[in-house]
C-alpha cells in the first residue's frame, strides 16, 4: 500500500524483530508494560514523533480499549478499528449478551446480570443446572473464568473470580453460563465499512485449545454444512449490525453437540488467527482495515456474496511453553529457520538471537498451511512444523505435531476437549545423528551461536514444575 510504518518499543525490546521490520521505530522509554505499551499518552507521543497519520492497534495491549480509540481520535489521528462505542458495548460481556438476545442472536444460557450477589447467582446456577462457568463481565481470554461442578464449590469460586476480576479489570461483576457438553468454538470473521455494508468472511474453527486458549485453528470448519454456515454467518452479521460495527471483528460462537449455536463473545479487533481467512479467501485483511478506515467501501463482490473460500487452511500457534504442562518458557533463540514453499506462510515475531521473555504472551510464530483440501492441508502443516527449527527455548512444537497427526483431529469430529483426550505425548527416540550433532556442538572450541559456557540464566526456571495455573 506504500504506507510507511512506525513501530513502538519499550527500551528493553530495542532488538525485537518488529523494530527492524518497520520503516521507523520510536522508543516508549523504559519501565513496566503500564508505562510503555499500555500508556496511551506515550503511544500518542510516539505517533507524533514518528509522523504517523493513523494507528493500527494490532491484537494485543490496547487493541480493545475504547479509551485508547477515543484518545487516538481526539489527537486527530485515524483510528484503524471499530467505533469506541462498539468496543464498549461488546467489551462488557453482560451488556453484549443482552444486546445479542435483543437482536435475536442466540446466547449461551446464563444469568442476566440484573444482580450478581452470591445468592442470586446460586439460584441462577440451580436453574441452569450444574456444571456452570463463572465468568467476569469485564473479562476476556479466559481470565477469571472457572468451572463449578456442584453447589458446594460455588461460593469459593465466586470469591476467587471476583478477586481476579477486580484486580485484572477493575470490575468484579460476575455472571454464570451453563457449561455446554462437548462444545466447539466456531467464530465468524466480520467486516463492515463506514457506508453501512456489513458482511461475514466465513468461519474459523477454534476448538483445539489448551488452558482455554486456541493453539490450532482451521477453516472451513469440518462441523458446518452450508445451511448452518449461512445461519451462523447471518447471526454474526446481525450481531455486528446491532452495535454499529465498522472494520474487522470476530463473533465467537459455541456450537453444541446437537449443532445448536450460541453467541459467546465478540472480539473488536483482528484475531491472531486471521491468516487462515486471508489464505482461503485470497485477501489481505489488514490492508482492508486500513482502506475501510480511509473511507473505502467494501468491494461489491463481498457485499453481493460472491466471495467463496478456496481450499483449506490451518494455523498452528508456536508458543514458547512446555509442551506437557503448557507453562511459558523463556530463553534466547539460538537458531531459527522457518519452513517455506507453496502454501506455507509463517508470521513470526522472533529470529535468531531474539530474547523470549516471560513478560509478554509467549507466542513466537504462526505457521499457516494452505492447500487444496483438508487432507492436503494437514499433510502440509505437519511437514511445515517438522521443518521449523527453533533451538534454545522450549516450545509446544511437539504438541502441535501431536494434535495434527491425531486420529481425532484428522476425523474433523472434535471439540474443545480434544487436547485433553490426546494419547500421551511421548518423547521421540533420539537418533544417532542427534547424539553426534550434540557431541560436536559440545566439544567445538568456538561455538558460533553460544555465549560463554558459564552463565545459563534460563536453567534455574526449569527445576520445578508447578501443578497448574489458576487462569
Amino acid at each position, binding site marked *: 500500500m506504500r504506507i510507511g510504518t512506525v513501530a513502538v518499543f519499550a527500551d528493553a525490546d530495542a532488538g525485537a524483530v518488529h523494530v527492524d521490520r518497520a520503516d521507523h521505530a520510536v522508543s516508549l522509554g523504559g519501565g513496566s508494560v503500564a508505562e510503555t505499551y499500555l500508556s496511551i499518552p506515550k503511544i500518542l507521543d510516539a505517533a507524533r514523533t514518528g509522523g504517523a497519520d493513523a494507528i493500527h492497534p494490532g491484537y494485543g495491549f490496547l487493541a480493545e480499549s475504547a479509551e485508547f480509540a477515543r484518545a487516538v481520535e481526539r489527537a486527530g489521528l485515524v483510528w484503524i478499528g471499530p467505533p469506541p462505542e462498539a468496543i464498549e458495548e461488546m467489551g462488557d460481556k453482560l451488556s453484549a449478551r443482552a444486546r445479542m438476545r435483543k437482536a435475536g442472536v442466540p446466547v449461551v444460557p446464563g444469568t442476566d446480570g440484573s444482580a450478581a450477589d452470591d445468592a442470586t447467582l446460586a439460584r441462577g446456577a440451580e436453574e441452569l443446572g450444574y456444571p456452570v462457568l463463572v465468568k467476569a463481565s469485564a473479562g476476556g481470554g479466559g481470565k477469571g473464568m472457572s468451572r463449578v461442578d456442584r453447589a458446594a464449590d460455588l461460593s469459593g469460586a465466586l470469591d476467587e473470580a471476583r478477586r481476579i476480576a477486580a484486580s485484572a479489570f477493575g470490575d468484579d461483576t460476575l455472571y454464570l453460563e451453563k457449561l455446554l457438553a462437548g462444545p466447539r468454538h466456531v467464530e465468524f470473521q466480520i467486516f463492515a465499512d463506514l457506508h453501512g455494508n456489513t458482511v461475514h468472511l466465513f468461519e474459523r474453527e477454534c476448538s483445539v485449545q489448551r488452558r482455554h486458549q486456541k493453539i490450532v485453528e482451521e477453516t472451513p470448519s469440518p462441523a458446518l454444512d452450508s445451511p448452518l454456515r449461512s445461519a451462523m454467518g447471518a447471526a454474526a452479521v446481525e450481531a455486528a449490525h446491532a452495535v454499529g460495527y465498522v472494520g474487522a471483528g470476530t463473533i465467537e460462537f459455541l456450537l453444541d453437540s446437537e449443532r445448536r449455536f450460541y453467541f459467546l463473545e465478540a472480539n473488536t479487533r483482528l484475531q491472531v488467527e486471521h491468516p487462515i481467512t486471508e489464505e482461503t479467501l485470497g485477501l489481505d485483511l489488514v490492508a482492508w482495515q486500513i482502506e475501510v478506515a480511509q473511507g473505502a467501501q467494501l468491494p461489491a463482490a463481498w457485499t453481493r456474496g460472491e466471495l467463496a473460500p478456496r481450499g483449506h487452511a490451518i494455523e498452528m500457534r508456536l508458543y514458547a511453553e512446555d509442551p506437557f504442562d503448557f507453562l511459558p518458557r523463556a530463553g534466547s533463540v539460538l537458531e531459527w529457520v522457518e519452513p517455506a514453499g507453496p502454501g506455507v506462510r509463517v508470521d513470526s515475531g522472533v529470529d535468531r538471537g531474539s530474547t523470549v521473555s516471560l513478560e509478554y504472551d509467549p507466542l513466537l510464530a504462526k505457521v499457516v498451511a494452505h492447500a487444496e483440501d483438508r487432507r492436503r492441508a494437514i499433510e502440509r502443516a505437519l511437514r511445515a512444523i517438522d521443518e521449523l527449527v527453533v533451538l534454545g527455548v522450549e516450545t509446544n512444537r511437539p504438541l502441535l505435531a501431536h494434535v495434527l497427526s491425531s486420529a481425532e483431529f484428522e476425523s474433523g469430529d472434535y471439540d474443545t476437549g480434544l487436547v485433553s483426550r490426546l494419547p500421551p*505425548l511421548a518423547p521421540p527416540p533420539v537418533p544417532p545423528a542427534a547424539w*553426534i550433532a550434540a557431541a560436536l556442538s559440545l566439544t567445538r572450541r568456538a561455538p558460533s551461536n553460544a555465549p560463554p559456557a558459564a552463565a545459563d540464566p534460563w536453567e534455574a*526456571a526449569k527445576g*520445578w514444575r*508447578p501443578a497448574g495455573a489458576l487462569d
Partner: protein
Amino acid sequence: MAAGRCARLTSLRLESNGEEREVTLANGTASIDGKKVSFTEIRRDDMLVALEVEGSIVPVRSARRGDRAFVWCAGHVFEVRRAADRPARARPAAGESHAGLLAPMPGRIRKALVRRGEAVARGQVVLVLEAMKMEHAIRAPRDGVVTKLELREGDLVEAGAVLAEIT
C-alpha cells in the same frame, strides 16, 4: 561449504529425553554406547547443516548454550546435556524431588496459603504467584511439612528462587 571435517577424539556421557549414551567421536566415526557409526559433517559457512550418517544424509541444526546442546533433526528438537550434570529421567516426569519449591518464572507473590510448620497434602496450593498477567498456583509436590516459607504477599521473586521448602 565444507564436508569431511574431523573432530578430535572426544568422549562424552550425554542425556536426552530420558536416554543416556556414551558418545565418542574420532576421525569421522562415532561410537554410541559402543556401537560404531561412520559420519561426515556437512557445513555451510562453518555451520553444521547436515550429517552423513552411515551413507545417509540427515539434515540437522545445532546450537549450544553452556553445557546444553540443542539439536533439530528428523523433524524433532532434542535438548542434550552432559549426563553428569543431572541424573537421567524420563520426560514427562510425574513430580520433582526438590525439597524447595522454585519459582517457575519471575513474578509477584499474590497469596501465601500456608504457614511455616503447617502440614500440606500433595497437590495443595501453597502459594499463588502472579506472573505474565496470570496467576499460577504453586502446589505441594508431595505430602509433607512446610519447613521454610519466608515470602510475603507482594514480594517480588526471580525465576528459580526458592519459594518454600517442604520436607
